[in-house]
């Protein structure tokens, strides 16, 4: 519950901070956000499994984001839309993670 409050607080802070990402980096930021979202959902899923490791989670969060952004950047340089790979991979994993979370939560309800 507290992480969701953190997310909302972050949204509000972000909206009110007088800063926005330059258009040139907008694409990379979008892919990085996708990766970060996947990491957060993965972390949530893992914590429901009881397999949550803070180091793995943090490394995944920052590592995935940077890698996704880097991939998009390299793709732009090479003329290949590599960011599609990131979108596909992380989109896929987001749904998998969400599926896991859903199943765990429903099972928990069943157990009750």
């Amino acid at each position, binding site marked *: 519950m507290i*992480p969701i409050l953190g*997310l909302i607080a*972050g949204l*509000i802070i972000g909206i009110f901070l007088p800063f*926005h990402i330059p258009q040139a980096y907008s694409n990379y930021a979008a892919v990085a956000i996708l990766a970060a979202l996947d990491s957060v959902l993965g972390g949530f899923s893992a914590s429901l499994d009881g397999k949550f490791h*803070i180091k793995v989670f943090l490394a995944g969060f920052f590592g995935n984001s940077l890698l996704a952004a880097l991939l998009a950047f390299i793709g732009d340089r090479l003329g290949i839309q590599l960011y599609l790979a990131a979108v596909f991979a992380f989109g896929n994993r987001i749904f998998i993670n969400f599926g896991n979370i859903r199943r765990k939560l429903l099972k928990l309800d069943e157990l009750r």
Partner: protein
Amino acid sequence: MKLFKTMALTLVCLLLGIVVAWQYNSVNANLVLAQYEKKNLSQLVEELLLERENNEKLKTRIEELQQEVAALKDDENMDMKYVEDLKKSVLMARVMAGLETVKGTGLVITVESGGQIRVRASHIQELLNELKASDVQAISVNDERIVATSEVREAGDYIMINGRQLVPPYTIKAIGDPDKMERSLNLMGGVLAKYQVYEFNVGLEKNENVVIPGVRDDGTVIRTDKLTPVVP
């Protein structure tokens, strides 16, 4: 440990939220900016065309105005020239009428009674007449300019010229060819010969720079109130 995990997760979520919000903002802003730029570009092109047209118009206007200025300057020059010509001709007319002080080569003659006979108006008149006959251009007696309407007459012991009483010695200044005038004055039986008979003291001096003053211009010597020009 549980608290630590939750805190880490919360912080990461906070970070994610901030980045998402930034991205949202930037996408919006960039969209608006792009639209604005696009709109501005077409508008700017239109404005540019309009301004170019204006520029052309103004250039032609400048040319027109420059031509006008040139024409006015020409006019002004013409006017100036006209005024100069007028001034010159007015001056010439005044010189002809004897209204201007003039100078030139000529004779300065002084006549004074030798004691026997008074210098009379007729003597002076005779001298002036002789000078006029020898192409004199300007004469004055005791600085009284002789013009077309100048009288020379007797007034008791004096001579009257231009309504002024003159007293001897009489100084006659004449601008003209000095040699010619001298010759005609010195003719046998001429004016100077008569003067010798009357025993007048006569001085005759050629001068390169005889200055003869203009007639006084107060309407007493030259009157034009009865004159109407008849233009053919």
